[in-house]
């Protein structure tokens, strides 16, 4: 039983039932005591007031005779002995009941428990007996009559308990709702409009404390990655120049194939470091003031930059979209990184002589950017995974770092949208799409 709600409900209802049983039992006990006293009194009264109806000593057995009518219901057994100890009986069963000493007795006789009262009067001895079951059934009846309304109340009590429990648990539900609705990247402390009950305030406080520390740790890590990448960039660029220079001077003493390989590896390292830096910046969102920017101009620059790579590989790289400025609210550094990574990716995965389209569209719900390549696409089962950091497709070609698409995703998230990937339906190739960029008017 995991839920506090169910635990509370079960315990409360079970507790109420047990309490009702205990109450019933004690009511029964009290009622029985009261009944005992009453019946004892009745026995005594009957014994004392038994008239001397016949002096002939004949037993008066007729149940309904004379004034005894009311006594039959109470199953009274009356015996009488005259002064000479000759027994005179009042009903049949009484014939075999022995004579006891005066006073009250509990006596088992003829498989029945009896309450017996005997009294020695001047001219006779009278003994009155009654089955104890009579008083028991009266007590049970009384107890049941008092308890009955309680059983009717049980459903009402269950409903009430349900209501109280959900009402009491409301702050907890509110907190778990608010935690579950948070985006995974948000590490800001929880805050609530309503005052938090003291019982969970401690929990919320420690959670907030944890979030704050986590936030600091994550921020420190991002700063570290950004700094490391930034510091690595210059030496790597210098190394590359040095290598090229040495190669030009034939100072390496190695054949040119080895030198080319070295440079290829170095370029990959430089690319990786640049992407790490981009990712750290995208994560930190540093310098990310949202401005009105012309995404067409920005795209033209990126496409222009990559047109050299495209030209040397015979790839037809082009921009498709409406003429003239296309203004959106955005962070130009972030969107540049986004575009650079999408175009870079598309070119990497497009064979020489292929085509890459960068498409800008004005849509009813914002500006959409698409990069469409003519590569081999991504297998359906990998589409979800490729935005994971350092994930490289199982049949990945080229020298990707596996960071490009996560950079794109991060930037897209900061622009309140996301990256969607789908394979082309008309031929092989991939469509990378970032839609819903907020349009701006100049």
């Amino acid at each position, binding site marked *: 039983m995991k839920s506090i709600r169910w635990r509370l409900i079960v315990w409360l209802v079970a507790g109420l039932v047990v309490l009702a049983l205990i109450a019933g039992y004690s009511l029964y006990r009290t009622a029985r005591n009261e009944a005992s006293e009453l019946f004892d009194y009745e026995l005594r009264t009957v014994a004392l007031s038994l008239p001397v109806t016949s002096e002939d000593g004949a037993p008066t057995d007729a149940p309904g005779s004379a004034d005894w009518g009311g006594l039959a219901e109470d199953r009274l057994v009356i015996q009488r002995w005259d002064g000479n100890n000759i027994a005179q009986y009042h009903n049949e069963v009484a014939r075999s009941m022995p004579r006891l000493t005066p006073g009250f007795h509990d006596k088992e006789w003829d498989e029945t428990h009896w309450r017996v009262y005997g009294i020695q009067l001047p001219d006779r001895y009278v003994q009155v007996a009654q089955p104890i079951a009579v008083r028991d059934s009266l007590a049970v009846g009384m107890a049941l009559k008092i308890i009955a309304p309680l059983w009717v109340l049980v459903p009402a009590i269950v409903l009430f308990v349900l209501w109280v429990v959900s009402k009491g648990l409301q702050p907890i539900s509110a907190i778990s709702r608010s935690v579950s609705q948070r985006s995974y990247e948000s590490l800001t402390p929880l805050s609530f409009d309503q005052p938090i009950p003291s019982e969970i305030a401690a929990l919320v406080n420690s959670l907030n404390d944890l979030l704050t520390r986590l936030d600091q740790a994550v921020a420190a890590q991002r700063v570290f990655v950004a700094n490391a990448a930034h510091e690595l*960039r*210059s*030496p*790597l*660029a*210098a190394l*590359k*120049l*040095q290598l*090229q*220079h040495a190669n*030009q*001077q034939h100072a390496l003493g190695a054949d040119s194939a080895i030198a080319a390989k070295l440079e290829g590896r170095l370029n990959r390292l*430089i690319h990786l470091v*640049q992407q790490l*830096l*981009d990712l750290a*910046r995208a994560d930190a969102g540093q310098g990310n003031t949202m401005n009105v920017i012309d995404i067409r101009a*920005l795209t*033209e*620059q*990126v*496409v*222009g*930059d990559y*047109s*050299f790579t495209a*030209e*040397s590989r015979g790839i*037809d*790289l*082009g*921009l*498709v*979209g409406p003429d003239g400025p296309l203004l959106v609210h955005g962070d*130009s*550094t972030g969107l*540049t*990184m986004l575009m*650079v990574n999408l175009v870079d990716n598309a070119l990497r995965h497009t064979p020489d002589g292929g085509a890459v389209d*960068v498409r800008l569209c004005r849509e009813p719900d914002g500006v959409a950017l698409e990069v469409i390549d003519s590569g081999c696409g991504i297998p359906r089962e990998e589409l979800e995974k490729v935005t994971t950091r350092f994930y490289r497709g199982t049949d990945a070609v080229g020298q990707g770092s596996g960071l490009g698409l996560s950079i794109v995703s991060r930037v897209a998230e900061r622009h309140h949208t996301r990256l969607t990937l789908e394979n082309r339906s008309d031929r092989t190739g991939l469509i990378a799409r970032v839609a819903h960029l907020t349009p701006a008017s100049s």
Partner: protein
Amino acid sequence: MRLLLVEDDPMIAETVQDAMRSAGHAVDWAADGRAAELSLGNAVYELVLLDLGLPKQDGIEVLKRYRRSGGTSPVLILTARDALADRVQGLDAGADDYLVKPFELDELAARVRALGRRRVGQAAPLYVHGAITLDPSAHTVLLDGQSIDLLPREFALLAALMEVPTHVFNRRELEEKLYGWGDEVGSNTIEVHVHGLRRKIGAQRIVTVRGVGYRMAQAE
């Protein structure tokens, strides 16, 4: 040729100096903006290699002051890939070309050669790109040493493209270069001129960047 290299990272500066020296140039090195200003004030350089992220004084600021004080030498900007805005600012402030870091040494050498042909002291610089040499003052174009005839608008178009051979010019930029204020420009005029120019110098020498514009093909 005498060059000034303005670069704050000694590792890069050292290699670039070595490479430029082995290419036969004399190189001075300024490690920050102030040193760059001093050097530019004291000596005449035929080419300036300017890194934009400089300590003490911003590279753009150095460039602006240099141009304001009458400096005419070509300036080649070295900039990081993620600083797109700097590049635009640099061109606006009077830079002649740019290279995105990390660049290839061959590429740098080629740009230096091309820019260096715009000699200081000449009335107008000479643009050289691959087999094409364009002299703006004499209004002549040589292709593989052979003079070719261009219409005035075609000449202006080629001059614009050769001015910054790494830049992709969009239609609006080219219209601004080719036409004065108030000129009526037909919707496909630029395409017509590009077509005419390509017929005369060879179609492969001008690259169409689909949806963006035109630029010079990479020099062979």
